[in-house]
């Protein structure tokens, strides 16, 4: 674990990684991928785990800069983190990049884009994906749902919440009840929540879950399995891979799923490494997006559950990783990798085709 060799040659660059934790599917996978990439690229990583608010992220950032990092990579816990960590990096002359979260404030966006040490940000359009998931359900004739919403102080979760809500409005689906996904604590809370859905709203036909990771998906399935209801009598649309999602899909509980964001973390990270190693891609700012996978068939599900967001699987080859760092790399190269993100890509990467 950690950043590989401890002996530092003068050449070896250090990247500070501010990361919320490595205990959920994406967190664990990126932790493994980044460590692997660092080995391949001969850079040293220093991880600081566990920050969940901007003030703590800033503290981590300062410590990492002082530890001699040449670049800082982080997921902004809220939009302001871009501003604050960005300033810290600018003052220290350290490059930085982010992933996963859009910037929802124009002033902050302007400041970030004016920051000379800002390398890039890669984000996904969670909003549209959520709408697509709801549309999938609507096609199956669903009209009444309950929703497990996300932390409203988290920009990405707000995107997802809104995607679900707007999607339901567009498809004439009624949201009967809502409860918020507990960001920490027990999966039993989720079980209780789902049970409460079933008692309060017997007419409920489906559950929308803003996230299935960190035990939430498993807990939803436990609650449904324990309810004595016919499998499939309630449909679930859930984000992220979780343990047993294949089985859930085949049983009929899980009817649509989506996920696979780790690629955007990786690309952002690689872009940062590239810049730290002295390669300038283009004059201005460049920002990239990724479309997550939408899973609607059993075959897709099988691949998704087995190979996506699995720390033991490296979807990107060493050669590819190496090819994305160098003087000749362009924005298009990165965007191509992001655009390539699909079930087919996964199949190919793991040798299924």
């Amino acid at each position: 674990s950690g950043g590989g060799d401890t002996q530092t040659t003068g050449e070896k660059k250090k990247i500070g990684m501010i990361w919320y934790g490595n205990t959920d599917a994406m967190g664990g996978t990126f932790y493994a991928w980044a460590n692997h990439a660092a080995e391949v690229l001969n850079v040293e990583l220093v991880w600081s785990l566990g920050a969940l608010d901007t003030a703590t992220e800033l503290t981590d950032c300062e410590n990492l800069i002082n530890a001699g990092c040449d670049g800082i990579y982080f997921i902004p816990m809220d939009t302001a983190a871009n501003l604050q960590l960005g300033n810290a990096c600018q003052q220290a002359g350290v490059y930085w990049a982010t992933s996963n979260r859009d910037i929802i404030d124009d002033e902050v966006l302007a400041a970030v884009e004016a920051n000379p040490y800002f390398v890039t940000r890669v984000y996904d359009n969670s909003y549209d994906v959520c709408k697509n998931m709801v549309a999938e359900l609507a096609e199956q004739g669903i009209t009444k749902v309950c929703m497990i919403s996300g932390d409203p102080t988290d920009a990405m979760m707000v995107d997802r919440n809104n995607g679900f809500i707007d999607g339901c409005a567009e498809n004439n689906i009624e949201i009967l009840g809502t409860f918020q996904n507990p960001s920490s604590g027990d999966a039993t809370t989720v079980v209780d929540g789902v049970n409460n859905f079933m008692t309060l709203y017997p007419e409920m036909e489906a559950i929308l879950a803003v996230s299935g990771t960190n035990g939430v998906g498993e807990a939803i399935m436990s609650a449904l399995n324990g309810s004595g209801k016919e499998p499939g009598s309630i449909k679930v649309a859930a984000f992220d891979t979780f343990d047993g999602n294949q089985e859930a899909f085949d049983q009929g509980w899980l009817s649509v799923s989506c996920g696979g964001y780790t690629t955007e973390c990786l690309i952002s990270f690689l872009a940062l490494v590239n810049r730290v190693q002295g390669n300038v891609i283009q004059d201005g700012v460049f920002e990239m997006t990724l479309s997550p996978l939408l899973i609607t068939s059993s075959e897709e599900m099988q691949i998704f559950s087995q190979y996506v967001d699995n720390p033991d699987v490296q979807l990107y080859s060493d050669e590819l990783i190496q090819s994305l760092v160098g003087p000749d790399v362009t924005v298009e190269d990165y965007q191509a990798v992001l655009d390539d993100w699909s079930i087919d890509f996964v199949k190919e990467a793991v040798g299924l085709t």
Partner: protein
Amino acid sequence: MNQRVRKLLSMDTLRKIIPLAGLIIVILVFSFTTNGLFLRWNNIQSLIMQAAITLVAATGTVFVMAHNNLDFSLGGACALSAVLSYLVTGGELIPFFIMCIVFGVMCGLISAFIHIGGRVPAFMAGLCIMFAGRGLAQTVSASKTMLMVGAAQFNQLWFFLVVLIVVFGACYFLFNYTKVGKYQKLIGTNPMATQLSGINVNKYKTLAFVICGVTLGIAACLTIVRSAAVNGNTGLNLETDVLLALSLGGISMQGGSATRIRSAIIGVMFYFILDNGLLLWGLDADYVDIVKAIFFLLTVTISIDRSQYSVIA
């Protein structure tokens, strides 16, 4: 063997200097093992700014601990004051700072009211405020993004230094050279005797909560200066950080005359230097907490004054 260990551990002199000695040792160790990174001016500067929030909050908390109460409301109260202050002032900077302190004091007064008027242990009252405050902050902030880009301009060393010196200086003076501080220690030792010595115990307890509220409000301001946004996560874990840091600083868990305000500065610096130094070492993130915890247990084991307790609490 057990007895000999105990004898060694209860050595009075060792005990008194350990928190400070520990701090100095940790500073020395990190100075020599981080290729000079630790002592670089930039690092020291960051350390001061990082520690400031916890230090300010801890300094006020000492007053409450001196009269033998734990204030567990800090984190939630911090979020609540910041959110309410934002709503009231619309995020205009100076009014925001002022209202933050006002709401901080209000949280302190609520604690005091529940504790004194309702005769509920202050820790439990604080726990409920922490809960309710965080919940309210999250509920209220859910509807909008509360960015305070302007606050970022104060994220500079001089500002933190001024705040720290003023707050710590004022609290140091209040605690050691005025009735407010002296009475807290008497209340912590024997509340009934304090009352019968003609001291209005409830008034001075309330004052302690007010002081704690002021420092909490200031801590909330500093948090916003560092995070440039107000939301439900503002001041996350502040209460446990403060408690942990004060324990590291050797504070008396039962209050009374053994309470020293220096525990705040020693403890908080200790806490943040450990974090900082371990990261400079490049210690694997998963092991940082373990090393920190071991330091924590060892320091307290050596430094705690066991004669304060007839039974270790």
